[in-house]
């Protein structure tokens, strides 16, 4: 089977595509073209790394536990319903 040549992609297109599909394992023709572009474009690859860093910062952030007093208050308010 003949395969079509991979089209060149522009940085703006890469940014949009990467933003929407950052954590999805895609293997389409377009996705392969994007991956190829990322290997050769320092700006796009830096943007991608930075974006992953941002997500990681928010994901790793510690969230405080519910204070016991708030838990008690919630259960008390429910039992009065």
């Amino acid at each position, binding site marked *: 089977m003949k395969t079509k040549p991979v089209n060149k992609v522009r940085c703006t297109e890469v940014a949009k595509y990467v933003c929407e599909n950052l954590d999805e394992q895609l293997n389409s023709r377009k996705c392969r073209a994007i991956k190829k572009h990322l290997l050769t474009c320092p700006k796009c690859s830096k943007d991608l790394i930075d974006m992953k860093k941002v997500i990681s*910062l*928010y994901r790793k952030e510690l969230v405080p536990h519910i204070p016991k007093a708030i838990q008690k*208050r919630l259960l008390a308010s429910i039992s009065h319903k």
Partner: protein
Amino acid sequence: MTKEQTQDIDNESELVHKAQKGDQRAFSLLVKKYESTVYSFAYKVCRNEEKAAETLQDTFVNVYRKLDQFDGKAKFSTWLYQIVTNNCLMKRRRNKIERSSVSIESPESPQEDSALQGDGTPLQALLSVKHTPQDEVVNTELREILDNAILKLPMEQRLVFILRDVEGHSSEEAAKILKVSVTAVKSRLRRARVFLREQLQEYMEV
């Protein structure tokens, strides 16, 4: 799906069914199961312990009131997230109205709105997280940077970013929770990611 997961869903459906019939113990068990999920999500959205506690309370009051409307077509957790996100949006709207009628100089910050309990005790007095002094400095600095950036995001984008990137829901699930199209989720996510990357650029280059 594993046998345990199937059993878990069955147990949950039974709990919801019992709670709908007025079983108080079943409702309390549902609250126990999901209180951390709701509090954690609310905290990530409003970046403030008092507001997260208020959202937690409001959410379960709404769940209690609307439980008979839950038809079991969606997952209970999806329905619950719909209520929490709705509360976050409502709170944001209420705060905007209050701010515009009181002052135009008070931007949303983690320290605002010092709510009082019914007995007059500041709610803040109930909320404390213990850290070492060194951790405290690093955590406070980083937290402030992250707070400032995410609080500048429009609520619609903030909710999508937290659901998708922070909590790891799929685009389809986020769309169901927010009652918007998957395309809208992706577009909001793209804008949120670009905005946050720009906001935190300086911090990442240090």
